[in-house]
């Protein structure tokens, strides 16, 4: 396929890895620890595991898998609210596949479905509108989640529902915003990340400027990266070059998709229907100010939280669950006490085990973990 195969050329990867090794070795020696680079986006986490990129890298560079998987950071209380809506007799709940398996305090959407709730997997929010048209006597709810990447599609769907006069459609909105999230991670204690691979598809919506503060204030380089193996390697190399030069700035490796100013139509749709929530609860990270959005007053009629009674109870993460530490890069997934034991992709305890964009599931699925102990031990000690 065009613009895919070219970015999977193994000979180019070899050359990049040599360059990465040369730079990372020097930088790691200066620091007395490996260089830590965080990929913020779950899509990158997925690619990194799928193509075995970690195994190609020298020990002098360490990838930290950040909080950018929207399914993974959804808190238990929100899942419970969603299940409560789905179990309402007049409701048909629609959502993306991954979201169906996130554990709630009692059950996931998938379990609710097996108990008789009408829960349907859709590819696009527009499919939910089709279901609404076909079922006029039902209330169709779209369980919307994701960062700015998926926010425009949800916003446009609400606008289309309004334009078509569809009244039996509403949104259970769990969209989150990237900038407050990165800021919260940067401000957290024990944070030892030297640079970032910036999220490619969030950036195609918001552009490159919103990241300026990371270079200016936090003095960390950010390279907005594509998702093919060579994109990721090239971006990593660019981060290391910036670190070596000691001059952090925002660079755009993914310029074939990411315009500097973002996408005007997408941003406009977002600002028409959404407003910031004062705060939003995250699994593993706690509450982060202004990190979520909700429908504004003008579109309140499409808000499932107003149409349905939801429990809206905040529920703490299970005690044994260490998702928060994994999300901040403090521990590696397999260092979590329940990893691979009480928590597996079949029986996820924490949300990082649910989606292939979550670090724990990715490790589990693609065979990372304790057998790489010599390498990871080194890092574990450093991170502790």
């Amino acid at each position, binding site marked *: 396929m065009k613009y895919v195969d070219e970015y999977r050329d193994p*000979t180019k990867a070899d*050359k990049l890895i040599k360059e990465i090794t040369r730079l990372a070795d020097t930088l790691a020696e200066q620091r007395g620890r490996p260089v830590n680079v965080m990929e913020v986006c779950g899509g990158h986490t997925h690619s990194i595991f799928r193509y075995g990129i970690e195994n190609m890298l020298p020990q002098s560079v360490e990838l930290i898998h950040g909080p950018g998987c929207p399914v993974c950071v959804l808190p238990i209380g929100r899942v419970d609210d969603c299940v409560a809506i789905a179990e309402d007799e007049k409701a048909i709940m629609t959502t993306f596949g991954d979201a169906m398996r996130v554990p709630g305090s009692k059950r996931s959407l998938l379990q609710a479905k097996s108990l008789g709730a009408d829960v349907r997997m859709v590819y696009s929010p527009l499919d939910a509108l089709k279901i609404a048209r076909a079922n006029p006597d039902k209330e169709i709810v779209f369980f919307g989640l994701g960062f700015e990447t998926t926010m425009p599609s949800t916003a446009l769907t609400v606008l289309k529902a309004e334009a078509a006069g569809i009244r039996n459609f509403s949104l259970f909105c769990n969209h989150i915003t990237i900038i407050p999230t990165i800021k919260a991670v940067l401000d957290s204690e024990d944070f030892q990340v030297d640079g970032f691979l910036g999220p490619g598809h969030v950036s195609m919506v918001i552009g490159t400027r919103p990241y300026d503060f990371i270079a200016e204030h936090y003095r960390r380089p950010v390279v907005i990266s594509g998702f093919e193996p060579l994109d990721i390697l090239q971006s990593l190399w660019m981060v290391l070059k910036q670190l070596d030069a000691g001059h952090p700035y925002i660079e755009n490796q993914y310029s074939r998709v990411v315009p500097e100013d973002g996408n005007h139509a997408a941003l406009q749709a977002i600002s028409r229907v959404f407003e910031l929530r004062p705060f939003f609860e995250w699994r593993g990270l706690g509450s982060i100010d202004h990190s979520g959005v909700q429908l504004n007053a003008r579109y309140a009629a499409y808000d499932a939280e107003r149409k349905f009674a939801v429990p809206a109870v905040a529920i703490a993460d299970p005690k044994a669950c260490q998702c928060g530490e994994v999300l901040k890069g403090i521990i590696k997934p397999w260092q979590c006490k329940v990893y691979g034991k009480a928590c597996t992709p079949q029986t996820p305890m924490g949300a990082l085990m649910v989606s292939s964009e979550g670090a724990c599931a990715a490790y589990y699925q693609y065979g990372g973990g304790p057998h790489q102990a010599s390498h990871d031990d080194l890092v574990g000690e450093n991170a502790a």
Partner: protein
Amino acid sequence: MCLGIPGKIVAISDAVQLLGIVDVGGIQRSVDLSCVAQDFASLDSLIGHWVLVHVGFAMSVIDEAEAQATLAVLTELGQVQEELIAMQEGQS
């Protein structure tokens, strides 16, 4: 969910609703073009362009020149040069 997929716009199916048909690896599906129509004088001029498709919405027109530029940087890293020459020779 956050991984988009590149596809080629092959037709406009509903100009009012801004819907088009996009070929993604041989599979054709209806895709919303609201986010990419802005930069084009007419919807029809979108046909033939590659876009990044995300949950049923075309979110970005893939910039051919930028794609080439990124590949050029990778190429400059060397090694592949010979291979490219061999490829070109093979084609002529």
